[in-house]
């Protein structure tokens, strides 16, 4: 066991103790993205199952039936959570795809930020649509 060890595994590390304490790693942004992707994924499992079951029930439904369904407070809340989580998870996932395949830095930034803008815009529009129906405006 070396006295120069700072990894806890008995081997000397090339990393400084402060870098290890910050825990940001080579990508310099830590594990926040990784965790957010997993937590949103876990939330989407029951939400997606509920949504598919609901859509089956709405197959061939007319406008009045869809409005009545969305006006139920439980449906309104679940739809808003589903929309927010879906677009959040989608933007996190697309970011990973871009980072793997786009090797021009400025293009990566433009495409990634553009996708995030689009996701926020679509999420806000879809949530407004649900609220408009639910609140009967």
């Amino acid at each position: 066991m070396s006295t120069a060890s700072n990894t806890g595994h008995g081997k000397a590390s090339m990393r400084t103790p402060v870098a290890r304490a910050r825990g940001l790693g080579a990508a310099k942004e830590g594990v926040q993205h990784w965790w957010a992707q997993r937590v949103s994924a876990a939330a989407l499992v029951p939400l997606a199952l509920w949504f598919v079951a609901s859509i089956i029930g709405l197959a061939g439904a007319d406008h009045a039936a869809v409005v009545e369904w969305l006006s139920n407070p439980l449906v309104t809340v679940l739809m808003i959570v589903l929309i927010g989580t879906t677009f959040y998870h989608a933007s996190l996932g697309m970011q990973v795809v871009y980072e793997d395949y786009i090797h021009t830095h400025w293009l990566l930034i433009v495409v990634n930020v553009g996708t995030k803008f689009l996701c926020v815009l679509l999420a806000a529009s879809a949530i407004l649509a649900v609220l408009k129906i639910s609140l009967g405006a």
Partner: protein
Amino acid sequence: MSDTQAATGPKTGRQRPLSPHLQVYRLPLPAIASITHRITGIGLTVGTLLLAWWLIAAAAGPEAYATAAGFIGSPIGWLLMAGWVWALWYHTLNGVRHLAWDAGYGLELGPVYKGGYVIWGASVGLTIATLGVAAFAI
């Protein structure tokens, strides 16, 4: 040309096969499962446009809703819905497997292959069941 260089031994100059050579290399099941997870994720992201359109049309009124519902009920709409439903089932089932892997479970080669077959079968089966029940409900 660079292929030839990369595939040539440093001293002998003999041609060496590149590996994996994607034109002749059969991707193993875990690799297919992995790239399919990514492709279905991209497909579902694009599919959110349909979800947003459907909701906004419903909020806009009966005429706009009839247009959106008419598109979804058309042959092209059914084809898109079939692809979307399958992508959702595959990505959800395989996503649960990814969460289990992240927690350290099922990482041995046996469960990885078995799970790959199960998820392909289950996603196709559930897609047929989903569309069948939806078609029956209309």
